[in-house]
């Protein structure tokens, strides 16, 4: 029973990191009908930049802010420079594009940052909290991870649902043509949407790096797990994506705890394959026809 509790806390903590990635994927999917396979690689990149900042003696929090800001910029620039030209093209172009960005980022990262695995600092302790000699089975860093992702989600929710900027962004995503004839600068909204998604990815990168370490493909698995969560959630629903990703986190934690930690990544891929098989329409037909 105690073990179950430990695995559950672990699963939720990891699941929240996957959820940030899943939510980023859903935001980009809804705005531009593209699966951003480079989401993880972008996060790897911004995490390296944070590490450089921190290694130069800056406090963790400055590195944290720099990572998120860099994410915002990388996402926005990617949309503006690379995605915009393929937006009106067949979906396959966008797939190749996002795979291309993934490969590119993972190829230049070793040149810029070195290829070896690096440890990554935590802002607060990641050993379990003790109260009167008994362990609470959760570390301050795990609490920080869960809290940071929850706060990010809450802020995004408020921006999208409660501000006119959010209303513009939703309209641009739901129906770009109608948004344009209503005077909304759709291009800018999509750029911003990509930027916010990459910012969320950058957060995931910062939260994952202390446990998965930092190397050019360190986010590959996190991306697959986040992607699986997003697919389970139907790819259209932010809430579904978060729930799906936390579910994946829990499932992997139980597999790794009760069956064997070597099997956890395999377990993740197995879930993904099963989910994809249960969706015989395949990856390109998630977009239900929007009704006008």
């Amino acid at each position, binding site marked *: 029973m105690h073990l179950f509790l430990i695995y559950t806390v672990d699963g939720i903590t990891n699941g929240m990191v996957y959820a940030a990635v899943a939510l980023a994927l859903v935001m980009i999917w809804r705005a531009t009908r593209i699966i951003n396979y480079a989401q993880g690689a972008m996060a790897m990149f911004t995490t390296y930049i944070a590490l450089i900042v921190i290694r130069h003696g800056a406090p963790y929090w400055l590195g944290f802010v720099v990572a998120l800001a860099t994410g915002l910029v990388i996402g926005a620039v990617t949309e503006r420079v690379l995605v915009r030209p393929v937006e009106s093209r067949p979906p396959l172009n966008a797939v190749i594009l996002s795979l291309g960005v993934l490969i590119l980022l993972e190829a230049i990262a070793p040149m810029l940052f070195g290829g070896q695995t690096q440890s990554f600092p935590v802002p607060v302790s990641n050993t379990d909290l003790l109260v009167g000699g008994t362990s609470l089975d959760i570390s301050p860093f795990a609490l920080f991870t869960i809290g940071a992702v929850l706060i990010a989600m809450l802020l995004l929710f408020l921006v999208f649902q409660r501000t006119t900027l959010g209303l*513009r962004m939703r309209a641009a995503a739901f129906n770009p043509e109608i948004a344009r004839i209503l005077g909304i600068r759709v291009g800018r909204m999509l750029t911003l949407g990509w930027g916010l998604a990459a910012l969320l990815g950058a957060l995931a990168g910062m939260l994952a790096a202390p446990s998965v370490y930092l190397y050019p493909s360190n986010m590959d698995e996190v991306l697959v797990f986040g992607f699986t969560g997003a697919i389970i959630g139907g790819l259209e629903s932010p809430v579904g994506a978060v729930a799906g990703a936390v579910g994946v986190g829990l499932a992997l934690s139980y597999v790794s705890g009760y069956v064997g930690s070597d099997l956890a990544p395999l377990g993740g891929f197995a879930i993904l394959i099963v989910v994809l098989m249960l969706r015989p329409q395949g990856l390109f037909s998630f977009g239900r026809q929007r009704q006008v």
Partner: protein
Amino acid sequence: MLEISDLTVAYGGVIALENVSLSVPEGSITAVLGANGAGKTTLVRTISGLIKPRHGSVMLGTQQLVGRSPEAIARLGVGHVPEGHGIVSELTVDENLRLGGLWRRDRADQRVAIEEAYELFPPLRVRRAVHASNLSGGERQMLSIGRAMVARPTALLLDEPSLGLAGGLLAQIMQRLVALVTERKLSVLLIEQNARSALSVADQAVVLSLGKVELRDRADRLAGDDALRHAYLGF
């Protein structure tokens, strides 16, 4: 004044509009009639900037619209009620209305404009928090027109607003529209297949056929002349 001159539009190599000229004075309604595929939707989408013409000009007052983006054209005062309503069904009625004037700086007047839209179409008020996907056809049409009005346009393009509406409701909506046109000095381009209802509210009428202007006349004269009506409008 909305003035279209010599407008030619092609899809690939296929001409959809050929040297179309027409003008819509302030405070008046010009009906554009024509059969399926005549080019009516192409005309309003070109005015809105959604389609780039091969050549020709579209002037709104002193501003050339050709070459500008749809968002810029909307901001210059062109309201477009697209074919099939074009409401955003994932958003609520109120959000749809707010969308209409989001680009405007004057937030206070924006709220006034939304209030006016609810006064114009009272059925929308009780449905304000409802997702637009739950609206009836008539409510959708009201929402689409109301939303265009929130931006306080000087020109209004209506693409088959009668589609899917019961006659009584259509007459009601048209009546409110006519009142608005004189009050706000709107230039309205009213696209219709249903010539009878369009002619009853329009000042002038243009008949499009295979992308060309086939006939242009005062609406009352066209409606009253049996021979013309039979020949061009088939009723």
